[in-house]
């Protein structure tokens, strides 16, 4: 089930109503059933993967909890690690490695052509975080299988995050005190409406333009391709953060708190800062479980750069099984290593506002360069697009295509950035009702709803991050 569908809205209304009318003790049952239904709505067969993952990690967690020595916990940790990563490898990377082997060695190993289960990278990382935390004795194991299953499959964040930590989400399923609270409903609803606005009004409208330009990139040069890339940067931000907003908002209405996933990333003055504001749940996951496990910055400069590059490279591979994602990760790794080497991140905070603004623009362009690798399906296409961007002939010949779509995307994107600059940058969305007051907030929400009705792309296209 996708969020931007009437099916989901009805589903959520029914579940919320049942949730608050049911006995608090049994609410986890309702949420677990709802989460499985939510996932099975797409392809019922793949629920067995989630159940398999749940059972393995539950078993390993229980086994590890009784052992005091790390050495004793290790075998169970490895079982969890290999079974989760094995599933991920089988469904996501097997064909990539087969294809690469065939190209490199001239072999003809047949491809498995398996369907990629929706959200597999997200729930695999979520369950892994549970095993890692227990292995490192940072969390206690969850003895209740049902509640643990709910932690793995909690429907608002099941297919595209935020990737929650066991220590943050699991304790919330233990309490039976979730009441329908005014503040939760008002701020949750605001965040849900904002999420829909970002997704169906901005991201999906921009997608029409970007798809048409990137789909036939050979026909365009210079500013048209560059403009499409700028727009893709906005599209992917609104698409993904829109999903996170809906997930966080829905959870808050039910009384659960999910971690923040985006903090206006395009206002970053350095790439390091960008990664502290973009897909926070993944970047902190990579930092805590990969970068620090590799040694972080504790083993000298060279190792620090290596660790940064490796972390970002694996972060790239997490997104997708193609060389483009590897390069995307590598580029980000290089940016971070260079910033570390030059101490840019600290330097920029001491500069004047004008220089900081200039840096913001520069960082946006550096990130846009990586988005070309992210968006173009193949390496050849990426090169073609980059060549096109740097072609000076007819550079300023901007192709507008459909004027209606173009005007809509300009108006809605500008409105959104004004909203970000003047409201969301200064006030946390959780506190909007207290800061703005009921009437202003209602006005804002009604306006966003009208934008959704008038400008929203109503065909319910998938979120970009569902494929990861």
């Amino acid at each position, binding site marked *: 089930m996708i969020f931007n569908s*009437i099916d989901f809205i*009805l589903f959520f209304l029914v579940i919320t109503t049942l949730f608050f009318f049911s006995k608090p003790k049994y609410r986890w049952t309702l949420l677990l059933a709802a989460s499985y239904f939510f996932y099975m709505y797409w392809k019922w067969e793949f629920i067995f993967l989630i159940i398999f993952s749940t059972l393995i990690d539950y078993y390993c967690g229980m086994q590890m909890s009784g052992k005091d020595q790390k050495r004793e916990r290790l075998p169970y940790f490895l079982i969890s690690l290999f079974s989760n990563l094995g599933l991920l490898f089988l469904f996501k990377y097997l064909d990539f490695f087969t294809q690469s082997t065939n190209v490199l060695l001239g072999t003809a190993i047949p491809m498995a052509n398996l369907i990629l289960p929706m959200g597999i990278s997200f729930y695999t990382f979520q369950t892994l975080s549970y095993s890692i935390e227990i292995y490192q004795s940072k969390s206690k194991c969850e003895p209740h299988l049902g509640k643990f299953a709910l932690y793995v499959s909690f429907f608002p964040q099941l297919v595209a995050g935020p990737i929650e930590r066991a220590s943050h989400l699991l304790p919330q399923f233990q309490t039976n005190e979730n009441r329908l609270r005014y503040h939760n*409903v008002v701020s949750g609803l605001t965040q849900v409406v904002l999420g829909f606005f970002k997704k169906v009004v901005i991201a999906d409208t921009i997608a029409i333009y970007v798809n048409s330009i990137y789909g*036939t990139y050979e026909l365009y040069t210079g500013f048209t391709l560059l403009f499409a890339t700028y727009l893709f940067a906005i599209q992917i931000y609104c698409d993904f953060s829109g999903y996170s907003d809906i997930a966080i908002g829905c959870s808050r209405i039910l009384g659960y708190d999910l971690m923040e996933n985006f903090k206006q990333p395009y206002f970053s003055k350095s790439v390091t800062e960008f990664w502290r504001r973009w897909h926070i749940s993944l970047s902190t996951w990579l930092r805590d479980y990969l970068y620090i496990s590799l040694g972080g910055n504790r083993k000298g400069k060279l190792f620090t750069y290596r660790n940064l590059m490796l972390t970002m490279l694996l972060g790239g591979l997490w997104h997708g099984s193609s060389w483009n994602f590897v390069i995307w990760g590598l580029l980000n790794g290089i940016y971070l290593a260079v910033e570390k080497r030059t101490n840019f991140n600290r330097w920029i905070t001491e500069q004047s506002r004008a220089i900081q603004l200039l840096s913001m623009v520069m960082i946006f362009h550096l990130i846009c360069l990586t988005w070309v690798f992210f968006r173009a399906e193949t390496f050849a296409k990426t090169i073609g697009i980059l060549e096109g961007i740097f072609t000076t002939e007819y550079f300023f010949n901007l192709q507008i295509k459909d004027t209606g779509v173009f005007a809509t995307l300009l108006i809605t994107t500008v409105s959104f950035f004004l909203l970000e600059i003047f409201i969301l940058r200064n006030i946390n969305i959780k506190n909007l009702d207290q800061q703005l007051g009921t009437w202003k907030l209602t006005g804002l929400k009604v306006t966003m*709803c*009208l934008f959704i009705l008038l400008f929203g792309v109503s065909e319910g296209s998938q979120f970009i991050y569902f494929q990861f």
Partner: protein
Amino acid sequence: MRIIKYLTVFLISLLLADQGVNLVLERLYAQTMTGQSGGKVNYLLKNFDHLSTLSIGNSRCAHHVIPEVISDQTYNLSHNGMTLIYHVGLIDQLLRYENIQIDTILLHLEREEIFGEKKNAEKDIQHLKYFYNKNPWIQKKISGLSRFEFIKYFFSTYKWNGKVMSVVNNWIKSQLLNAPPPPKGYVSNPPSGRDSINVSWDYQRLSKIRGAEPGEHLAPEFKDNIEYLNALCKEKKITLICFTSPVYQPVLKNRNAKMDNYFKNLSVPFLNFYDINDDDFQSIWLWKDTYHLNSDGALLFSKILRRDLNQLLAEKLNEKK
């Protein structure tokens, strides 16, 4: 209690805003006389109560058929990028619910839609959202797109979804700038110096795609729609004539027999100009791109269409006698 109060206030505000915006857009729409978001239809209904021929189709029809060449009482009601289901919906609305008499409908078709090569063609009905609550056929087709589609129409403004900018833009053109609507719906494509370059470029780019054969069978959705339209025209005593128009350097020459047989069985005259055997249409100077004739090409094509159309109508008249 506080939550219920808040949600009620929010919903009431939303419904009021929804009605208000809808009212404003209805006013703007009614005053629009140009453009494809209602302007063409409004202009037709305001200026004609009788048409000898209504030509309808996609952008190729809009650019290829010059109404004045066909007859004085011809109007070109084509809409860019739209497929058969859209045209059938619009004709249904005109014939059943608007005050206009039509003798002949000249329906432009594409081979791709006949053989179901055009993906998601049925979704074009969504561009007639405006008529959702006015036309049961359109409502049925739109509702058929997804299970809960009807819920969206609980809000009046949803019928303007995706059209607001065009409505406002066309209203400004009609009312503030006094821009004249295209003569009888025809959108002229005057020749320019870059045409031949565009055509060559387009031909090279599309040669791979155009080399592919279309599907084996006529698309079931196409058959449903054309048969519904045929029945409607019979009911209203209107002559329905289908036609295809030429493309630059056609590659697909098969399947003509299949189309001819189908229309013959349906007793609908079919004029197939896709691979018209006329050297003139192979001249690069008559084209804007490989699919669209410029106004010189359109003039030549409209004359041929008129000739064949008159011949066909004369034959029909003789049959009746």
